[in-house]
Each structure stands twice: as structure tokens, then as C-alpha cells.
């Protein structure tokens, strides 16, 4: 299990690097989409069918929006001259990243390894959720009953984004 996931994550990292370096914006967007679809397989491997369904649909819609924007504007990536500024940027980024990885590896050493976790808050949700909420799908039970308040917030975020996009895409801002 851990091996399969590691290989999948390795592919995702390669896909992500390709998406960042692609010369054509359309292929960059599609590569990012493929990374997103690999996420679906990860979710299925990790026993999260709910997330897999949501992610596959949401990724499709995101991809449609991004492809629409790219096709509507330009597909060409900018020419980046490898000048001193750029080299400085890249090397700084790499150093920063190496330092972060070093600290992260140090930090997570003490914690439980893959697949061995205990439950605390969630033990109540798993134990008798079904009996209390009556929902056979425990994730839905958590989402709409124990943490229904979060879900209202989440729906509000989509509402906010829709209203926000309607206001951003107005033709004229000021009278």
C-alpha cells in the first residue's frame, strides 16, 4: 500500500514539475489536471470514495474553467531570460526548499508511522454515529450533523465566490 502510494506520489511530483516548466500553457494546465486526477486514485487507495467522487467532478470543472481561460487568451509561455536575477531566484528557492525538507524530516520522526493512527475526537463519530444521526455514510453524517456548521460555511464560500466573480467580471466598475 505504502509502496503504491509512493510511486503514485512520485508520478504526481513529476507531473507537477512538468506543469510548472511546460512551454505551452495549455499543456501546463492539462498536466496540472492530470495531477489532480491522480489525486482521485490516491483517495480511492486511501478508502475515501466520497472524496474521490467530489474531486473528480471538481477537477473536471476547474479544468474546464482553466482551459477556457487559456484558449481565450494566449497559449504561449513567457520567455524567461536566464539572467542573474533568475539564477539567484532559483537557487534561493532551492536552498529554502532543502532547509524546509530537512526540518520536516526532523520534525515528523517522533510521530506514528503510516497507517497507524489512533482516534480521539473521531472515535465518537465512528462508534455510534450511525445510531445517532441515522446516516449510513459516516462522512455525510460528520459533514451535515456533527459539523454541519462547517458545511454551511463551505456552501457560503461558494456563494461568496459566485457573487465575487459576478462583481469582478462586471463590464463597468464605476458610473
Amino acid at each position, binding site marked *: 500500500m*505504502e509502496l503504491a*502510494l*509512493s510511486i503514485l506520489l512520485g508520478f*504526481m*511530483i513529476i507531473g*507537477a514539475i512538468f506543469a*510548472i516548466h511546460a512551454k505551452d*500553457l495549455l499543456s501546463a494546465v492539462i498536466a*496540472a489536471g492530470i495531477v*489532480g486526477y491522480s*489525486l482521485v486514485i*490516491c*483517495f480511492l487507495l*486511501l*478508502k*475515501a*470514495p*466520497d*472524496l474521490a467522487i*467530489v*474531486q473528480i467532478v*471538481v477537477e473536471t*470543472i*476547474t479544468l474546464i*474553467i*482553466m482551459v477556457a*481561460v487559456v484558449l481565450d*487568451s494566449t497559449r504561449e*509561455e*513567457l520567455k524567461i531570460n536566464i539572467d542573474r536575477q*533568475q539564477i539567484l*531566484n532559483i537557487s534561493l*528557492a532551492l536552498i529554502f*526548499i532543502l532547509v524546509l*525538507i530537512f526540518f*520536516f524530516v526532523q520534525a*515528523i520522526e517522533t510521530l506514528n508511522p*503510516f*497507517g*497507524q*493512527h489512533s482516534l480521539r475526537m*473521531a472515535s465518537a*463519530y*465512528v462508534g455510534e*454515529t450511525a445510531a445517532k444521526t441515522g446516516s449510513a*455514510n*459516516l*462522512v455525510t*453524517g*460528520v*459533514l451535515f450533523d456533527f459539523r454541519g456548521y*462547517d458545511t454551511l460555511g463551505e456552501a457560503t*464560500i*461558494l456563494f*461568496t*465566490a459566485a457573487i*465575487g*466573480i459576478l462583481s*469582478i*467580471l462586471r463590464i463597468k466598475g464605476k458610473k
Partner: protein
Amino acid sequence: MIVYILCFILFLVGLYGLITRRNLVKIVISLSIMEFSIFIFLVLIGYIDGGIAPIVSEKIINPEYVDPLPQAMVLTAIVIGLATTAMLMSIAIRLYRKYKTFDIRVIKNLKG
């Protein structure tokens, strides 16, 4: 352990793209890659070896489920990610109309 580290590397790949790229669309892509890595990380935290998907059925006796709470959190986070990506893209297309380019080195009216 290696899975968590790979996850973190995916996060940092997004960060690297964010620092080095100069294209609005590439910046949005980098941000969504960072987002993906956090989703996997959260689900990994909830995974239990030998656990089954959190759906109650009477056929299975004495089941051990994976942790449903991180899954609910990721579901919320996915929708938030969709909202932020859509906002970013709408601003990017609007900026493209005004400047005819996606280059952030050209788009800099504000300084100082």
C-alpha cells in the same frame, strides 16, 4: 514515513513554481498543486491500515473504519480550493484583457 515526505515535496514543488514563475496562469497552477498536497496529507493522517471506507453496512461484522473526520475536512477544503481557483482565474482573464499579457513583470502599476 516516505509518503509524508513525498507529500511535503509536492507542496514544495508548488512553492518553487510560485517563487520562480512569472506567468499568472503558472502561478495559479502552482497554488493548486500546493493545495493537492495538503489534501493527500490530511487523508493520510486519517488512514488506518486494514480499515474500510466509512460506510456502515450490516454485512461486515466488527468493522474498523478509517477516520471520517479528515475526509470531511478535505471535502470542505476541496470546495474552498475550487472557489479560490475560480476567483484567481477570473482576475487573471480580466488582467489579460487590460494588458494583453500574463506577465507579472509588465503588470506593475503599483509600486513603492
